[in-house]
């Protein structure tokens, strides 16, 4: 017991960034963080307890798995599962927990691993009351897990050091994973079964067309679906019908720009009827949303953000409001006495 404490305190002292709070067990980490993706298998994450999912990954060795978990992968695994509060050891413990649950036959690769887990679990857990027995029990059948039962503390000490030394150099690795409102490229245009809204247990979900089967050929945009739909139509990449059944029907296109002078320093808005009437009928906007009369439609960004006026479509299905300059596109003449203001 004493030895494990020594190891634990060694570890704590070792990584200055980690405060001296008790390490979470692999199971706890899993149920707080990993399960979000690793239970349903979001973004191709190997599913918890699914041997087939885990076998090829475990085959590459536990160190590789640890690296993936700590640093993230281009396939979509965020560093530390996106939870930067986890210590490296907790992350490893979670990996161990999932690997154990996957019941993959691990002949050799597991050997360097157990220490990392052993020291975390062995120290605070077994001594404490409840949650401990379970991971240990689950772990028991695995050769990898045996060290949890204490016998090899000396061997573990140096191993843990090296193990935790390497990854601390590269903490939050993927800078984009920080902003949770910003989708990293790996999370864009996911197939339905992985998008978090479709139910992957539904057979129909798997029959649906994945967006990426079509999108790569389309003109690119910086937001929304990452497809520039207006250009796609202009260039003839897509030829959507203008009528439910009649493929020859044509839209009534009206080419008339409306310029709205805006307050402040933003460029004026140029509203192109043309691009809108390529898609829509007059009745879609007039008169329910916009009164066709100059000055009759007070519009503010606040209203748009809340889904009114332009925001009925823009920010929901048409390009979002982050694309300021697509609308605010007419440069103002600099004029010391502002004429604008409406």
């Amino acid at each position, binding site marked *: 017991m004493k030895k494990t404490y020594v190891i634990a305190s060694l570890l704590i002292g070792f990584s200055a960034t980690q405060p*001296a*709070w*008790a390490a*979470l067990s692999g199971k*706890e980490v899993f149920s*707080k*963080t990993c399960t*979000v993706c690793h239970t349903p298998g979001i*973004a191709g994450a190997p599913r918890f307890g699914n041997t087939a999912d885990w076998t090829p990954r475990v085959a590459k060795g536990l160190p590789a798995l640890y690296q993936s978990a700590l640093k993230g992968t281009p396939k979509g695994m965020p560093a530390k599962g996106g*939870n930067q*509060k*986890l210590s490296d050891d907790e992350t490893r413990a979670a990996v161990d927990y999932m690997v154990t649950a996957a019941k993959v036959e691990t002949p050799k690769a597991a050997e360097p691993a157990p220490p990392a887990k052993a020291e975390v679990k062995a120290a*605070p857990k077994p001594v*404490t009351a409840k949650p401990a027995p379970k991971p240990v029990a689950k772990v028991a059948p695995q050769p990898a897990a045996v060290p949890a039962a204490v016998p090899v503390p000396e061997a573990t000490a140096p191993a843990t050091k090296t193990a935790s030394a390497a990854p601390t150099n590269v903490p939050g690795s993927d800078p984009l994973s920080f902003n*949770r*409102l910003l*989708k990293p490229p790996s*999370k*864009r*245009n*996911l197939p*339905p079964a992985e*998008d*978090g*809204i*479709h*139910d992957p247990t*539904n057979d*129909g*979900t798997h*029959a*649906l067309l994945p*967006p990426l089967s*079509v999108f790569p050929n389309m003109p690119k945009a910086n*937001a*929304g*679906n990452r*497809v520039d739909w207006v250009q796609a139509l202009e260039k003839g990449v*897509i030829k*959507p*019908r*203008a009528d*439910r*059944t009649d493929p020859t029907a044509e*839209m009534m296109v009206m080419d008339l720009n409306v310029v709205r002078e805006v307050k402040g320093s933003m460029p004026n808005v140029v509203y192109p009827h043309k691009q809108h009437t*390529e*898609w*829509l*009928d007059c009745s*879609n906007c007039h008169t329910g949303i916009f009164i066709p009369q100059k000055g009759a439609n007070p519009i503010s960004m606040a209203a748009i*953000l*809340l*889904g009114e006026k332009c*925001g009925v*479509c823009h*920010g*929901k*299905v048409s390009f*979002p*409001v982050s694309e300021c300059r697509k609308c605010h596109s007419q440069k103002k003449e600099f004029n010391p006495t502002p004429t604008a203001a409406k």
Partner: protein
Amino acid sequence: MKKSASRKWWQAFAGMLAVLALAFVEAPVAQAEYGDVVINNYADGAGMRPVVFPHWFHRLRFRCKVCHADLGFKFKAGGNEITMVKIIDGEFCGACHNGDVAWSVENCNLCHSGKPGTPTQVHESTIQKLVQPTGATNKK
């Protein structure tokens, strides 16, 4: 004993941290397409999965006007009071999903493919992002 006392403190602290961490991590679960509409007016109550309507897929084939002007779909997620009876009568989705223009209504699971309990929403809409944190219950 000192040790066990401090351990308890640790546990409490770790628990708090875990809750905090969860608050941060929980958010970005759904990564569906921009403009995907989940319609869950009646589905949950009827024991069906909610409907996921992919705007992008339909936009490849039809202009907005076909549904939103000709078929009378309002620009409002969940605002059209669509029911299977109306669909079978040829209204709303049923105008095309009739085995003629597109596949017909017996393919329940192609539309009713959302995760049970997913609230009605325009996925990734500005309102969803700014006013209601992702994952929060969405007002209609």
